[in-house]
């Protein structure tokens, strides 16, 4: 008896079986690893392509000008009305004295972005005592120069196929050689609104628009969703109509987001006449979309609180409402917030419903409240991706990076909340 047991689990046949098992297990593990590898490759390619295309969107090319605010060009008593185009041309002519004819002067003007002219103007408006003086300042270069400096212009292409002609290229090279061209971090990108000119276009307006929108979404969908979930999970009798509601909520969570956009259009704009393009409407629409998610995650969070805690509270005479408000909800809160943040992150990335309610307009001003016309981060990406200028390509990718950054931060907070505050049983 003992001998056969011994023989079954040792000996050559057993060794062979064991080897086969090991091989099977190795194959299985390898398959899992390969799947992980494929996922990782996708991720690296995605992030890599966005970053490689977009990182330069955070940079801006600037050139140093030696600006003379001569009294003929600008009046100290009314500095805002100066002839700043001429001032810039004269500043550039100090570098390139040969550029005196009309077309050369036009070409010189093309080196500086509108933001650059504005900077020259603002300096003297802020400090009229500059009139009659000469100052050096860094101003942002025009988009084409920016592209050239960042290496996006093919210098070997024939001149007529190039955005930048030979003359301009020579000027830029000279400025470069003199140390009068630099690449700086584009802080303005985060603080300004959209613009027709790519070097001036910023994501600040879209960030604010998304912020106001998510604020509305959160304020509407979180309390409503949590309260609905608490009622369904804790107080509703397990009756047929509750089942029907439950099925419908699950269905609602699966409805394509554009349908919510149509609903928002019909209800908030056409019926309630709320302002078009406003974050309020976007927020309300996204709240509709987020509500089922919040209800579902809240119910899961409430289910996750062990029955023993409810029994404990009931057993010393807490009422059902006290059981929920004193124990179940506080214990479910971390998971509940996690769910809400994930819902918000979804809403942040949502584009289609916003297109339906007119948040796709070209808006330069920063929205100062939920009633101002605004756009949102994903919509801004959509708009820029649609623009033909080379300068918007990098802006698009940069905006995608900003959006992804926000999503990563939000999901990170969700994970942190879950890890840090969730009570384990």
């Amino acid at each position: 008896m003992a001998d056969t047991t011994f023989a079954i689990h040792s000996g050559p046949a057993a060794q062979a079986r064991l080897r086969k098992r090991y091989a099977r297990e190795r194959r299985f593990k390898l398959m899992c690893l390969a799947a992980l590898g494929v996922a990782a490759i996708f991720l690296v390619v995605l992030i890599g392509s966005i970053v490689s295309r977009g990182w330069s969107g955070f940079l801006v090319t600037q050139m140093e000008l030696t600006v003379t605010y001569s009294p003929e060009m600008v009046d100290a008593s009314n500095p805002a009305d100066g002839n700043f185009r001429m001032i810039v041309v004269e500043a550039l002519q100090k570098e390139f004295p040969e550029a005196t004819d009309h077309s050369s002067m036009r070409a010189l003007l093309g080196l500086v972005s509108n933001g650059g002219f504005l900077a020259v103007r603002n300096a003297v408006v802020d400090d009229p005592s500059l009139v009659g003086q000469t100052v050096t300042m860094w101003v942002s270069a025009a988009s084409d120069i920016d592209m050239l400096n960042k290496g996006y212009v093919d210098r070997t292409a024939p001149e007529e196929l190039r955005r930048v002609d030979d003359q301009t290229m020579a000027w830029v090279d000279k400025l470069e050689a003199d140390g009068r061209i630099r690449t700086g971090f584009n802080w303005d990108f985060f603080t300004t609104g959209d613009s027709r000119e790519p070097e001036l276009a910023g994501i600040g307006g879209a960030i604010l628009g998304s912020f106001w929108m998510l604020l509305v979404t959160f304020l509407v969908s979180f309390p409503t969703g949590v309260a609905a979930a608490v009622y369904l999970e804790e107080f509703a009798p397990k009756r047929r109509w509750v089942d029907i509601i439950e099925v419908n909520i699950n269905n609602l969570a699966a409805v394509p987001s554009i349908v919510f956009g149509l609903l928002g259009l019909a209800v908030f704009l056409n019926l309630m006449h709320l302002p078009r393009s406003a974050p309020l409407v976007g927020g309300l629409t996204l709240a509709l979309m987020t509500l089922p998610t919040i209800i579902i995650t809240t119910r899961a969070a409430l289910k996750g609180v062990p029955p023993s805690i409810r029994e404990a509270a009931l057993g010393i005479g807490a009422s059902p409402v006290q059981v929920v408000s004193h124990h179940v909800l506080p214990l479910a809160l971390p998971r509940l917030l996690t769910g809400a943040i994930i819902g918000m992150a979804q809403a942040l990335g949502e584009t289609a419903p916003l297109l339906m309610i007119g948040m796709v307009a070209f808006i330069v001003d920063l929205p100062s409240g939920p009633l101002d016309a605004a756009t949102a981060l994903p919509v801004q990406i959509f708009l820029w991706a649609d623009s033909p200028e080379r300068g918007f390509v990098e802006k698009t990718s940069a905006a995608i990076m900003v959006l992804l950054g926000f999503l990563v931060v939000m999901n990170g907070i969700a994970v942190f909340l879950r890890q840090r505050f969730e009570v384990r049983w």
Partner: protein
Amino acid sequence: MVAVTEITASERDASHADAVTIPVDRLPELGGPVKMQTRDLKLWYSDKQALAGINLDVPERQVTAFIGPSGCGKTTFLKCLNRMNDTIEGVRIEGDVTLDGTDVYDRSVDPVQLRARVGMVFQKPNPFPKSIYDNVAYGPRIHGLATNRGDLDAIVESSLQRAGLWNEVKDRLGEMATGMSGGQQQRLCIARTIAVSPEVILMDEPCSALDPISTARVEELIDELRDNYTIVIVTHNLQQAARVSQLTAFFHLGRLIEVNDTAEVFQNPGESMTRDYITGRFG
């Protein structure tokens, strides 16, 4: 040899098929007053009957033990006494349960108030994930038993003292209760129940998750609490029932088969089924 002691489930059920739940006139004479009483108590979980008309008198300031094989309805019966079954979906209850002569299932009775008078300690220690202090203070707080912090402190201290836990925790009342040992947690749960000043304490296998030393502490505690409270305890441990209780009730398949003085039940059971159970032939 094997054939004599082992009784299979079907044989047992066949041999005791005639066993019925105790009628009122065969309930034992109690020395003292009756605290709680059930008459013809029946309970169904949906269509499944779990209690088949239980008659029982629970004596005041004594320990009553419920014994019986798993699934015989001990927990179900216990929860009827403080209406903890009310929260379960699909439960239907018939018959009477009285506390000091008033029907606890009467419409006028608020189950929440009832549970303040009839407290419960559960099988698995279930402290709130809060501080030790807050665990004990929770009951008095929701029932408004303390008007100021000093009163509350006093209730917390006396409850912990009566639960035999004060000396172990008096210096760390602010610590999380969930960090204590299982035995301490269970005594904390008892302190939490006492803090509400209930009249009856129901305990559902309070020691089944505890080690022998903690079990001994809880048993001592039950013995001390008997002076002030009416205690009903469900236990799987027959020695425990013999040690701590004055009255023992034996349940089987939703019926109350035998109830008598504990010494009588263990030394001289009146029913063959009780004898089979306490001698370990089934259950």
